[in-house]
């Protein structure tokens, strides 16, 4: 079970801010195995978001190579178009963010099913109630997001990320808007998904407690891997 999910080599991402050049991700190389649960920690501005956006094919790196599921995504020197990135993303990734970004006019169930409006992966799970049950939001499925608590909303966002059965789940500060009890619940959930569904999970957090639920903790400082 040593198959590689993501391989990054010498990734760099630089931003221009006036005359200054900021290196948000500075020469990072790493491998993430299939079924692994990795968390990135580090102070604010250390480049966590920039890095996982590149790993998650939401953004092009300035240089370096990236392959996901043994396919080269970046590294032919040519940045990918928005369309090409979308094709890769919807096949492989599910995302959750600090804000839940649920569509307020759609019910829980509709929000969860929304990705399938655009794309339905053939291998995706038909049984939506099973997924909602697992996440403990089955009995809320006809409610609107506004009627839910923060923890429930994040669970809906998780369900939405999982509906097309991704191989890799990316979570950028998923508990940033939740209290510590809810945060622990989400941590437990990510752990369960990793264990039971053998989902590859990449978590970004600055909550050390949450980071500890992962198999491996990678600390970033100034765009570099610190430990």
């Amino acid at each position, binding site marked *: 079970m040593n198959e590689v999910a993501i391989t990054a080599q010498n990734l760099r991402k630089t931003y221009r801010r006036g005359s200054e050049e900021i290196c948000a991700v500075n020469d990072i190389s790493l491998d993430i195995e299939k079924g692994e649960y990795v968390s990135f920690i580090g102070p604010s501005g250390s480049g966590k*978001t920039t890095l996982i956006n590149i790993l998650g094919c939401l953004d092009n790196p300035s240089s370096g190579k990236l392959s996901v599921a043994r396919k080269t995504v970046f590294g032919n020197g040519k940045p990918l178009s*928005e*369309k090409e990135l979308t094709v890769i993303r919807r096949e492989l990734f599910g995302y959750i963010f600090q804000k839940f970004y649920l569509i307020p*006019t759609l019910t829980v169930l509709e929000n969860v099913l*929304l990705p399938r*409006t*655009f794309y339905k992966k053939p291998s995706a799970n038909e049984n939506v109630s099973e997924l909602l049950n697992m996440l403990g939001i089955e009995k809320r499925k006809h409610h609107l997001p506004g009627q839910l608590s923060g923890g429930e909303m994040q669970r809906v966002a998780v369900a939405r990320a999982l509906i097309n059965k991704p191989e890799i789940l990316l979570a*950028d500060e998923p508990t940033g808007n939740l209290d510590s009890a809810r945060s622990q619940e989400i941590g437990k959930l990510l752990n369960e998904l990793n264990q039971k569904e053998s989902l590859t999970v990449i978590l970004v957090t600055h909550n050390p407690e949450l980071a500890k639920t992962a198999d491996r903790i990678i600390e970033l400082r100034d765009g570099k891997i610190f430990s």
Partner: protein
Amino acid sequence: MISLYKVSYKNLLRKKTRSILTIIGIALSAWVLASLMGFNQGYEAALNRDIDNMGFQVTLMAKGCPYEAATLMLKGGTGLRYLKQSVADSVLSEEEVEKITPMLMQAVFDPNKGESGGMSAYLGVDPATFPSMKTFLEFKQGKWFTDSKAFEAVMGYEAAELEQREVGDKLLIPEKDIELTVVGVLKRTGTQDDGTIFLPISAVQKIFGKEGEITSVGIKVKKEANIAKFEERLYNIPDVQVVSLAQVKQTIMNLVSTAKVMVFSIAVIAILIAMVGVINTILMSVFERFQEIGILKSIGAMPADIFKLIWMETLILCFFGGVTGSAMAFGLSKLTEVLIRKLLPYAPTGSLVQLDAKLVITTLIAVLIIGLVSGIYPAWRAASVRPLESIRSEAN
């Protein structure tokens, strides 16, 4: 599964007031558009109907003869010129002619009329042809003459009012000492017929000693006939003048075309305003939802999907606006008529705005095209949102 359509209409429900205002804007311009198109096809039809109602499109009379009762009155009943009755027969043989009716106009000064006396106009008509050509003349009382040679009179609405006559009353022709029996009183028509006293033509010829003479011939032309060509030939008959309603119609249509240009400019402005309204509404909703759109892209939406989603929103707005506007056009057609009548130099009687299903469909299609065009820019803006923009804005 949830459809793109459901996502977009539910989004429009989010800002109900804004959506409703936009729909009202579109509805108003659809109303203007439908009414104008209805007017465009209704006006000419109404005008033709009016002209048809006059019974004859061409009137033939002796050169120099006053052809309006009013002119005749002003001239004190003099100046009448006569045609031979045989002219009528020769006209009837022309192939374009459907029907003709000979008429003999006479006017007499009546010292007992009104305060200081006035002219009475008598029109001798052919009982066999005149009523069937002027089918729109309706009786308030009584009916046409019992006999084609009877000394009987049918009075126009105002004539009867002025002389205070009813069916069965006697009517004296001044100077001639002849008594007529009133057999009918017409309803008001709004034309010079109202002031006229109709008699059988043979009676007028006998009373005034004008046997074999007439003052005019009313001609009804066949529907498919070329009126212009026919008139050309009539002009060649010596000592005859031709009064054609086709010419009158042309003049009116020319006047109306000016009004039409004005009215269509109003429509164009209304449509432009509605378009700006739609673009503004959709663009605002796109800007408000930048993050949401970014998230839709991160969960697998292609730029084309987002484009469709936003385009759908404009289409939904325009569809409901178009339907409302068409319904308004039907429901408020009376009001539209009143407004349009105010703008027109000459408005025929009857309904000017003619609405039908075909027109409603045309309006809907036009409004949907407006929606498609207005939606392009906002939809393109939304489609080019990058998922990163939305995620970035929460990063710090």
